């Protein structure tokens, strides 16, 4: 390209020349791109195709494939409940303890009832049931009482082998409107010592038992007499 610029101003045509050079370079680049496009790689390329070429069945060893183990969900749908059931069947073979706190049972022990827990080692403990924590085998009850004018609260695991028996001493007349009767810790709602109620209950129990025993004895006597009479 000729540069028709005046010698008085040597840099006057510089801008123009630069622009020209740039445009030429662009043309060259375009040429490159078109050249590449012409030599495109193989179409429908797949990496397996390389392997397929030199595949020799004689050289290759057959690898034994072990089927995956059976999924635990198909073997046992709910393992935790199954374990709980087995544990309960060991610790509570008669099912009486389960029934006493079963939600389906209308005659179950509820919060607000006065319960008596007899333990293997130590004195029986009686108190108002404030809470029943139903967690399978760890099911526990919270009893509250006042001994020597000091409030005492005890948690008992109902399936514990240390617990010999749980008895309902007195039921709450009205259904408790709360699941947890923690308000009974407040002095305003505290029912105090349940010792008198428990003692009365135990006396009644003893009376009924003795009368039952007497009647049983009488029945057996009668039977014996009848037998004798028949003989």
């Amino acid at each position: 390209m000729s540069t028709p610029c005046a010698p008085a101003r040597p840099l006057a045509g510089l801008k123009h020349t630069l622009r020209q050079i740039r445009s030429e370079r662009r043309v060259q680049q375009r040429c490159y791109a078109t050249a590449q496009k012409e030599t495109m790689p193989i179409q429908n390329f797949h990496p397996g195709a390389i392997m397929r070429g030199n595949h020799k069945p004689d050289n290759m060893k057959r690898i034994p494939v072990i089927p995956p183990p059976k999924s635990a969900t198909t073997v046992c749908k709910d393992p935790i409940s199954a374990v709980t059931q087995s544990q309960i069947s060991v610790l509570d073979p008669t099912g009486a303890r389960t029934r006493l706190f079963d939600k389906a049972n209308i005659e179950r022990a509820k919060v607000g009832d006065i319960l008596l827990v007899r333990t293997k080692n130590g004195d029986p403990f009686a108190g108002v049931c404030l809470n029943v924590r139903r967690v399978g085998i760890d099911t526990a009850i919270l009893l509250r009482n006042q001994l020597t004018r000091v409030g005492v609260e005890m948690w008992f695991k109902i399936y514990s082998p240390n617990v010999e028996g749980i008895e309902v001493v007195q039921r709450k007349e009205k259904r408790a409107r709360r699941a947890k009767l923690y308000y009974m810790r407040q002095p305003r709602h505290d029912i105090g010592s349940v010792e008198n109620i428990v003692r009365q209950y135990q006396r009644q129990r003893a009376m009924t038992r003795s009368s039952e025993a007497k009647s049983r004895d009488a029945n057996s006597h009668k039977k014996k007499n009848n037998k004798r009479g028949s003989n």
Partner: protein
Amino acid sequence: MLNCIDNSGAAVVECVKVFRSKRAAKIGDRIIVVVQKQRNFGPESGPGGSVSISAANKVRRGDIRHAVVVRTAKQLQRPDGSVVKFDDNACVLINKGGEPIGTRLNGLVGKELRDKKWSKILSLAPMHL
């Protein structure tokens, strides 16, 4: 602040140190206490009124004494899984040899004292749980 349940003359004491432990004291732990409030035996001790008030109180306000924790409001789990919780914190004053200062306790104490060799306190207590 703990209640003192013996007849040594202290009613409310403050724990300033737990022996051999950096945690809170449990039942059966030995602690150092400062007597904050004295028990007044004046009108209540009718039959024992022959002893003057100053003589009945073996400890005075501000005394630093050793004591054993016998009840805690913090729930304490037993080895069998049951949990015990009392409504208050209480202790019994002892001398440095481990003998109780008072001669009588009023109130129940935790059964853990037996494991920790405080049988003297257990024998004084009217009830243990």
